[in-house]
């Protein structure tokens, strides 16, 4: 009856135990129906609120299961809001952060979602950037169209790259694609038409008007459009990783045979994700050429690729927040310590080594890693506790249906441990002096424990001989009605109290041995 009372509007105070009580919770009215907003054209909600009932009070409460959208929202809004107030140097840093973060997001799709260990990212960006810039400078294609050209170039280049990806696995493919950027660099550096400019294509027309270039309004526009690029990359990441393709590949990652058995063609899903990622990288390539109004061979350098790889590794592979956080950290070191020269890259490399040595999946994976560690640590500690005394081991406990037995065994073991601390010479002397009668607290506890022992192996005193000057012997019950008590030892005691004390000593001995 009390349950129904509590489930009404009446609130009760609960004791705060553990961390869950500190979480923010909604307390909806009991019978209210919640109209949750759904994103149009989909069945998805904006935030992952989950309703549950408090097990103690049975009060309905709503908890935000996944808080990452809030963090994304706060950080993106603060980044966008800070753009107008930043210095020129910081503006270019923000723009570069956004461009690199977008590249890394699309790269994470290949590495994490598709599971193809491709290192050809900068080659795709560079080649499509070069093709887009060529279309603009030498064929006079207007700038809005070269986004399309860049995307198509990326898609086609990605198609070529995908050819060996189905045959080669893991590291083999990574090593194969590692050299691709260098090959493109050498190839383009030897094109005769580009020799006067040292391999770069300049004067690419852009969404930033020419007279604004490197001026305050141009930098603002550049940062703002790079931010939009980042948002687009996040959207693509979300649409690919969170929807059908991503789910299919998630199943394939867990168990390839199972995925095949339920009709998931993960090979084609993998290929599609790879091609989408390459097309997106092609788009970024065109954006890159337009943002700098030129494209040079630096985009293909091995150091550039390694810097990008450092970002992904530091942040954590295969997750969007890892790509963005890693980029932010590397750009902060790279731009913030600009006066250090090449040494700042050394610092980045040291951070990279530290992260790979101590974190299993980058900085964003640390939380999960810590929780796993804590769980393991706690389990180990718990298993150490349960091995003590006469308690039931966890493996055994699974088979015992009546859990009361487990609890009573545990209680008895703890009681024994406590009683062992009470035994000392004084208590034994007190019992010897006066086996029957009023005793001290410690002795009473001990005797009460001995008295409630089970009948099997319980000690008993037997009177031998005539009633007068009779002698006493100690027996032990067998617990079996058909078998007589057994003699514990042949010693004969002359008085009852002496026998009582002998039994006491035997029981103390048993207790200490248990």
């Amino acid at each position: 009856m009390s349950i129904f009372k509590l489930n009404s509007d009446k609130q009760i105070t609960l004791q705060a135990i553990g961390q869950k009580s500190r979480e923010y919770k909604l307390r909806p009215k009991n019978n209210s129906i919640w109209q949750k907003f759904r994103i149009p054209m989909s069945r998805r909600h904006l935030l992952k609120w989950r309703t549950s009932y408090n097990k103690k009070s049975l009060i309905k409460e709503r908890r935000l299961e996944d808080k990452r959208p809030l963090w994304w929202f706060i950080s993106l809004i603060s980044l966008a809001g800070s753009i107008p107030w930043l210095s020129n140097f910081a503006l270019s840093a923000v723009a570069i952060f956004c461009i690199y973060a977008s590249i890394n997001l699309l790269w994470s799709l290949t590495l994490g979602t598709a599971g193809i260990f491709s290192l050809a990212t900068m080659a795709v960006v560079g080649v499509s950037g070069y093709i887009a810039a060529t279309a603009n400078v030498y064929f006079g294609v207007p700038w809005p169209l070269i986004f399309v050209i860049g995307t198509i170039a990326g898609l086609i280049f990605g198609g070529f790259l995908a050819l060996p990806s189905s045959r080669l696995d893991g590291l083999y493919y990574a090593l194969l694609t590692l050299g691709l950027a260098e090959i493109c660099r050498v190839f383009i550096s030897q094109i005769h038409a580009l020799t006067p400019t040292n391999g770069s294509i300049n004067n690419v027309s852009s969404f930033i008007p020419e007279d604004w270039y490197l001026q305050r309004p141009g930098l603002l526009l550049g940062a703002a459009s790079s931010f939009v690029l980042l948002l687009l990359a996040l959207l693509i990441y979300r649409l690919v990783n969170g929807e059908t393709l991503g789910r299919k590949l998630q199943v394939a990652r867990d168990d390839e045979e199972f995925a095949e058995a339920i009709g998931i063609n993960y090979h084609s899903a993998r290929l599609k994700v790879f091609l989408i990622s390459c097309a997106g990288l092609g788009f970024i390539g065109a954006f890159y050429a337009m943002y700098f109004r030129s494209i040079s061979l630096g985009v293909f350098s091995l150091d550039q690729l390694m810097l990008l790889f450092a970002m992904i590794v530091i942040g954590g592979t295969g997750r969007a927040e890892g790509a963005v956080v890693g980029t932010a950290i590397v750009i902060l070191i790279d731009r913030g310590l600009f006066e250090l020269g090449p040494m700042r890259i050394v610092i980045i490399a040291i951070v990279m080594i530290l992260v790979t040595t101590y974190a299993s999946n980058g900085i964003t994976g640390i939380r999960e890693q810590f929780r796993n560690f804590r769980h393991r640590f706690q389990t180990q500690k718990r298993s150490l506790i349960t091995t003590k005394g006469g308690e039931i081991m966890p493996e055994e406990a699974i088979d015992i249906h009546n859990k009361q037995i487990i609890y009573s065994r545990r209680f008895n073991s703890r009681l024994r441990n406590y009683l062992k601390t009470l035994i000392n010479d004084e208590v034994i002397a007190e019992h010897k002096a006066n086996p029957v009668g009023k005793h001290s607290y410690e002795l009473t506890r001990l005797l009460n424990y001995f008295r409630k022992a089970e009948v099997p192996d319980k000690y008993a005193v037997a009177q031998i001989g005539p009633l007068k000057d009779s002698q006493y012997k100690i027996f032990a019950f067998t617990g079996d009605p058909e078998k007589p008590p057994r003699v514990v030892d042949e010693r004969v005691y002359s008085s009852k109290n002496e026998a009582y004390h002998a039994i006491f000593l035997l029981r103390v001995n048993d207790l200490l041995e248990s």
Partner: protein
Amino acid sequence: MDLNLIIYALNLAAIYSLMAIGISLLWSSVGMINMAHGATFVVSGYSTFIASGWLVPILKASLAGTAFYTPVLVFSLTSVALLSGAIFGAIIYLIAFLPLHDKPNFAIRSLIATLAINIATVQFLLWSFGPRQKALPKLFGFGRIDFLDFSIRYDQAATIIGTLLLVGFMLLWFRNSRIGLEIRAMMQNPEGAALSGISIRRRALPVMMLTGSLAGMAAILLSQTSFFSPTAGALPLIKGLTIALLGGLGSVAGAMLGALIIGILEVITGEISFLGQRYVLLIQFVFIVIVLIIRPRGLGGLLDETRK
């Protein structure tokens, strides 16, 4: 066709095979892709450069004009290159192998760590020596040996003979020494080796030092024909990696065969008039891709067992 092209191809093949064998050997015995191989290459090149700055004046003062000058110079600078390569290999062992080898995902994590070592080393060298190219002294002098129809430059001859000697010694050591036996056991079956009491932790050190000194040898040989800069390690690293892939990671014979094929391919591509030097890398890459599409485990599977 000019017969000297064969010599040129052999010369290239020798240097490539030194890089590729190092990468291949390390992968098959320790299970680690050494991205810092390029850094080892550059570091031994620079230490040889510094050592030659010290040694050449001393040797010139004491031995100039005598027959001992060239052999002593070659011997001392080669040993400097081998030694510095070995020391850098030990440094990689300490940073990228020792803390990581018992952790999950060792292959990828060690790849990342060695990549970081590569970045750090190249940037450190840029910081301390600047981006300008350096030239090492010509160890073997200028001149040619005319033999039958061949005309071999001294440094080409030295490269081919030196590589053959070094690889030959290495294989001999693998065959006849206790450590070599243990390393071969690790290559064949790492778990079996561990179960029969071979400590991969301990045996990785000589392997790393050996592969490091191979890179050092490649550095001193390549520096006879080209200049040296902090970023010079990138191309040998990439070529070594792709040739090791072509040879089927883990097979010394495969790596040598791959290097030979790539060397010949490079020479032929350079000679064909409508292709020329520009297409050398591209054609090598396409060739390797085609081979790998047909045989994903490279050429090595034809010759011996490779690590899965």
